[in-house]
């Protein structure tokens, strides 16, 4: 029972972590809470269903399921990256030098727009992700892990390790960290700050879309509103870990998934969505900067 709930929590937490990374990366660079990020995840989930239906109709799914799924995930990530890129260019970049409130309001606007855009084009009712995996799974210690759960945990883990390596080791990743610390100085060294910001949105959106496809497959149901609650949870995870910190978002996401899963089974599933915020309040009381965050700096 306990182990089962931990596996469930890890699955859920990996997804929160993937979404939280997008919040934390954008906040790290622009100090903007990108409220439209949850919607990118929701679009990723829809793209999962649409692309899978397309590949099934052309007969590819029958030929090779793993290849189909790989194509679905990669294409969904590419399309969502394009969405993220466009949102930044249209809704945030023109407000780069405005007061901090303006891009925030713009973000809320984009979020409402994208929800309605999906509702109008895809309908307001739930869409079903076809059940492809049956009830396949394997025994792990004393519990049973479905193949899908294992896939979600492994894929998320690989993506998080890759992201960390990208940010710490590559020239572009280092430039991202430099831009997050001092944009003017970065530009004085020849770094194209606008390009780095675009890359941040592209990477964050790609991660969210993969989370979206995996959740669509896991729960089987998708509607235009799922980005809202997932977005709030992932944002909570990012704040919990220390907003702006990449390891913080990963840890915060997984912690949140575990708390929700254990709380739902041992306390009450009625309050499933409330545990996240209880933990958030508890941690912020002790560490206002979040688990991995710095204490808020005084700006002189």
């Amino acid at each position, binding site marked *: 029972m306990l182990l089962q709930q931990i596996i469930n929590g890890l699955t859920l937490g990996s997804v929160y972590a993937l979404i939280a990374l997008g919040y934390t990366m954008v906040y790290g660079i622009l100090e903007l809470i990108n409220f439209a990020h949850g919607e990118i995840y929701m679009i990723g989930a829809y793209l999962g269903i649409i692309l899978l239906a397309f590949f099934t109709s052309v007969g590819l799914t029958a030929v090779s399921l793993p290849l189909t799924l790989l194509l679905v995930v990669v294409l969904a990530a590419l399309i969502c990256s394009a969405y993220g890129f466009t949102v930044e260019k249209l809704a945030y970049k023109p407000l780069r030098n405005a007061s901090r409130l303006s891009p925030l309001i713009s973000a809320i606007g984009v979020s409402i727009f994208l929800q309605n855009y999906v509702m109008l084009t895809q309908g307001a009712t739930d869409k079903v992700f076809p059940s492809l995996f049956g009830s396949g799974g394997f025994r792990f210690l004393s519990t049973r892990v479905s193949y899908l759960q294992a896939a979600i945990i492994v894929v998320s883990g690989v993506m998080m390790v890759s992201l960390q390596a990208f940010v710490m080791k590559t*020239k572009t990743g*280092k*430039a991202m*960290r*430099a831009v997050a*610390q*001092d944009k*003017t*100085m*970065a*530009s*004085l*060294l*020849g*770094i*194209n*700050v606008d390009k780095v910001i675009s890359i941040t949105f592209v990477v964050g959106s790609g991660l969210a879309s993969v989370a979206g496809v995996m959740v669509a497959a896991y729960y089987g149901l998708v509607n235009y509103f799922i980005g809202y609650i997932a977005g709030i949870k992932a944002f909570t995870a990012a704040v919990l870990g220390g907003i702006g910190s990449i390891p913080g978002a990963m840890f915060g996401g997984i912690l949140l998934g575990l708390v929700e899963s254990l709380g739902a089974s041992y306390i009450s599933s009625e309050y499933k969505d409330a545990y996240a915020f209880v933990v958030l309040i508890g941690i912020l009381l002790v560490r206002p900067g979040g688990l991995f965050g710095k204490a808020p700096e005084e700006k002189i």
Partner: protein
Amino acid sequence: MLKLEAVRTRYGPIEALRGIDLTISKGEIVSLIGSNGAGKSTCLMTISGVLKPSSGRIELHGEDIAVLPPHRIVERGVSQAPEGRRIFPRLTVKENLEMGAFPGRGSFPEQIENVFRLFPILKERSRQYGGTLSGGEQQMLAIGRALMARPEILLLDEPSLGLAPIMVSRIFRTIEEINREGMTVLLVEQNARAALRLSHRGYVLESGAITLQGSSEALLGNEKVKQAYLGE
């Protein structure tokens, strides 16, 4: 090599540069002196493209660079070590230097060897975070980082600010050494005496306009400069 013609820069309604003319030839050290708020840093930020002039031309080898974004100006060979050093505190010393080499104008191993030769302490500290360095070491890192782009002209903003006298003379000796190896330098300083002793020519900036210019010797002997900037 670098030529400013009637450059005006404004911050909203305030005109911080009111028509600056300035030229620097290859191999020179030119100092720009003036009191706090005279517009010295504004002038460097305008050359680097962080601030856009409202009118006037900034020519590098005859090309107008005033219209270019900052990263393009660095790519053309103008690097700046800005006021306050602005080291990336949570990047290591080596990563700070790597960011300096971002435009890829020279070979990285060659450039970093060159910087370590000028400032051996940076080699010892290369794995430390930039934020853990002392003020003097940060200034060395700021200059070293600007040199990593293998610039043709180096803009230095107040390299002596907040440093102990022994560190100031150490930094100034290095600037002289870099210049002897062929680097053109535009030096902004409040420490007018040290700057003029080091440089070939100088400009005096007062409330956004150049009020005096000439050889450094002439400026050091000028009564007005002596009174206002040398404290004699």
